[in-house]
C-alpha cells in the first residue's frame, strides 16, 4: 500500500490539527451490461496540517484535489481511510461528538454564484450554520451575523439583501462570513479566488490572510493556480491523478522541485516579467492526462514523464522523505 509518510517520519507534524491517513475515494460510473467502472478520484492520500499553517493543494483538473477537500470536511464519505481532526476520527464518530467537531471545520467554495441560495437573504445565509448547529438564535444570532459581516468587510446593514444584489467579490465575502460564523479553527478553501477578476482576487487573498492571523486559522488552500498557492501557503502538496506526488515547504519546492511533475508545473507558469519570460523554457508534457477510471500502473506519471524508466511502470514509488521535510513519490527525484 502507499506510504503513510507525514506522521511516521516527520516528528514535527505529530502535533497536527488535521491528519489524513490513506484516504481513498472511488466513484462508480456508468453501469451498463458489464457492470460499473470506478473513478479512482483519490487513491491513498496521507497528509498532515499543523495548527496555524496553510497547506496548499495544487494540481490540474481531475487530479482529485477538490474531492479530497470535500472528503476531509466530510461533505462526502471516504471509501476508506481516516481523517483525524485533533484526535477525533471524523470517519468514525457519530452523533453529538461529530456535530461538535464538525462545527470547527468549515469550507469556502469556488463559485460564489452557485454556493449561495438565491432565495435567502444574506443574513439568513450567514446565520444558517448558527441554527443548524444550534449555537445561537434570535437577537444573539443577529448580533453574531453583523459582527462577522463587519469582519469580512461587508456592510452589516445589508443583511436583508439577496445574493444577486452583490458583486462576485462581495459574494465570496458572504461565503467567507458563513464559514467564519461558527468560529472554526480549520477551513478548507476550494479555489476561492479563481472565479474572480484579477483586481478582486487580491482583495480576497488579503482578507483570508488577515483572517488567518486574527483568528488563528488553519487552512487547506486548494487551487489549480500555483502562483496563488505559493503566495498563500507554508507548505505545498502536489496532486496528480488521485495521488500526492510531492509535499514540502513552499520555498524549497520553488527552489528545487524534486518530482518531475512538480518541475513541469513550476516551469509552465508564466510570470509577469518580460525579461524572465524571454528566458523561461516550459517543459512540455507529451500526451494527455490519463483517465482516472483506468490509471496507469505503478507510478501514474510514467506515461508522460520525460525521465521515466522501466521501473516506473513496474513499481509504484512510495511517498518518502528525501530531504528534511520534503516528501516525494518518485524513483528518480530531482533528476529532471
Amino acid at each position, binding site marked *: 500500500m502507499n506510504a503513510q509518510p507525514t506522521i511516521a517520519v516527520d516528528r514535527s507534524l505529530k502535533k497536527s490539527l488535521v491528519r489524513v491517513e490513506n484516504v481513498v475515494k472511488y466513484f462508480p460510473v456508468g453501469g451498463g451490461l458489464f457492470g460499473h467502472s470506478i473513478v479512482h478520484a483519490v487513491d491513498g492520500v496521507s497528509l498532515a496540517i499543523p495548527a496555524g499553517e496553510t497547506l496548499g493543494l495544487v494540481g490540474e483538473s481531475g487530479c482529485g484535489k477538490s474531492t479530497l477537500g470535500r472528503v476531509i470536511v466530510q461533505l462526502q464519505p471516504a471509501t476508506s481511510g481516516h481523517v483525524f481532526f485533533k484526535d477525533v476520527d471524523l470517519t468514525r464518530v457519530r452523533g453529538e461528538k461529530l456535530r461538535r467537531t464538525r462545527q470547527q471545520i468549515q469550507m469556502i467554495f469556488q463559485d460564489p454564484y452557485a454556493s449561495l441560495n438565491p432565495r435567502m437573504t444574506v443574513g439568513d445565509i450567514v446565520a444558517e450554520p448558527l441554527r443548524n448547529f444550534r449555537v445561537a438564535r434570535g437577537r444573539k444570532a443577529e448580533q453574531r451575523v453583523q459582527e462577522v459581516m463587519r469582519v469580512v468587510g461587508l456592510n452589516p446593514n445589508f443583511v436583508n439583501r439577496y445574493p444577486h444584489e452583490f458583486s462576485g467579490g462581495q459574494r465570496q465575502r458572504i461565503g467567507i462570513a458563513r464559514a467564519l460564523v461558527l468560529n472554526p479553527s480549520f477551513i478548507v478553501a476550494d479555489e476561492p479566488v479563481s472565479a474572480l477578476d484579477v483586481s478582486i482576487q487580491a*482583495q480576497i487573498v488579503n482578507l483570508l490572510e488577515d483572517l488567518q492571523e486574527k483568528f488563528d486559522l488553519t487552512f487547506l488552500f486548494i487551487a489549480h493556480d500555483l*502562483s496563488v498557492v505559493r503566495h498563500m501557503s507554508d507548505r505545498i502538496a502536489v496532486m496528480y491523478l488521485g495521488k500526492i506526488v510531492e509535499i514540502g515547504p513552499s520555498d524549497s519546492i520553488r527552489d528545487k522541485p524534486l518530482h518531475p511533475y512538480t518541475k513541469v508545473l513550476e516551469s509552465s507558469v508564466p510570470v509577469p516579467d518580460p525579461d524572465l519570460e524571454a528566458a523561461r523554457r516550459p517543459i512540455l508534457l507529451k500526451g494527455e492526462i490519463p483517465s482516472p477510471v483506468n490509471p496507469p500502473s505503478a507510478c501514474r506519471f510514467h506515461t508522460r514523464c520525460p525521465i521515466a524508466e522501466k521501473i516506473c511502470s513496474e513499481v509504484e514509488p512510495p511517498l518518502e522523505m528525501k530531504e528534511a521535510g520534503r516528501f516525494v513519490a518518485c524513483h528518480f527525484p530531482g533528476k529532471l
Partner: protein
Amino acid sequence: MTAVDGVSFNVDRGEVVGIVGESGSGKTMTALSILRLVPEPGQITNGRILYGDRDVVHMSDEEIREFRGNEVAMIFQDPMTSLNPVLRVGFQVEEAMAAHQRFTRTQARERVAPLLTRVRIPAAEQRVRDYPHQFSGGMRQRAMIAMGVSNEPSLLIADEPTTALDVTVQASIIELVRDLSGELGASVILITHNMALIASLCQRVIVMYAGRIVEQGPTRAIFKNPQHPYTWSLLRSIPRVDERTKEKLISIRGLPPDLSKPPPGCKFHPRCRFRVDRCFTEEPSLEEVEPGHLARCWVLMRNVEAPEAAQ
C-alpha cells in the same frame, strides 16, 4: 451603454499585441469590432478599422465575408462551444477551409490531417474521424487553431485562448501560437486578463479599463515602468509563482464601474489611490509619456513618491 469608447491602436505586420483588462473592460468588444462581429443590438457607432488601406466598417457583406475567412482568424476561449458536437473534427476543419473557396473540397480534405499535425495533434490521421467529445480541452483548442490557420491568415485574434485550460496545456498552446505566428508571419492580437501571458508572448500591450485604453506601449516599458495607476496596481495585485519574500498584495479597492452610468472624470478615479482633485471632474486624454508609450492619467506614476505607501 458605451462598451468601447474612442479606442485607437495599430498592429504591425508580424507583431504580437496584447489587450489586457478585466471583465467588462471592453477588450473582447474591441476584438469583435475588428471582425465586425459585435453582437446585436450592439453597433459600431463611430470610427474606422483599417486593414491595410481597406476600412472594415464600410465593407460590403461579401467583402467582410471574404475578409473574415481569408485574412483573419479568431480563436475563442471555450473550444467546446465553438465546435459542433455532432460532426467529426476532421470534417469541421475541412468545412472551414472549403467555406471560403480558397480550396476545392478535395484539396481541403487532403489538407486536414497535415494541418492537425501542424498544430501538434498526435496521430492526426486517425483523429480526423473523432468527434469533439473524444478530444481533450487542449486538443479541441488545437483543432480550433487548425481551422483558424487553415487559410493562412495574416491576422490571428486569440480571445483568452488558454483560460479554460490547465497550466501545462496552456504552456503548449502558447508555444504553438508563438511558433505559428512566426511561421505564417501573421500578426497576433492576444486578449487576456492574464498579465503574465502578455509578458510571455507580446511585444506591445494595450491596457483597457471601462471601455478605454488607459495605457499602451512596448511590453517591457509597461511592465518595468507602468505609468497609469491601474496598470501599476494590477501588476502588484497578482501573486507570482517565483515569489521570494511574502509581501501583501496591493489590492484595488471597489469594483469596476457600471458602464451604463460611468463616473465623471477619470473612469478609474473611484478606485485610484493616487487621484488628485482634477481626476474627479476631468477625463484625461491618452498622452505620450515617452516615445511609443501612452497613458491616460493626470498624475502618472513617475510623479508619485513611495507609491507602495499610498492609501
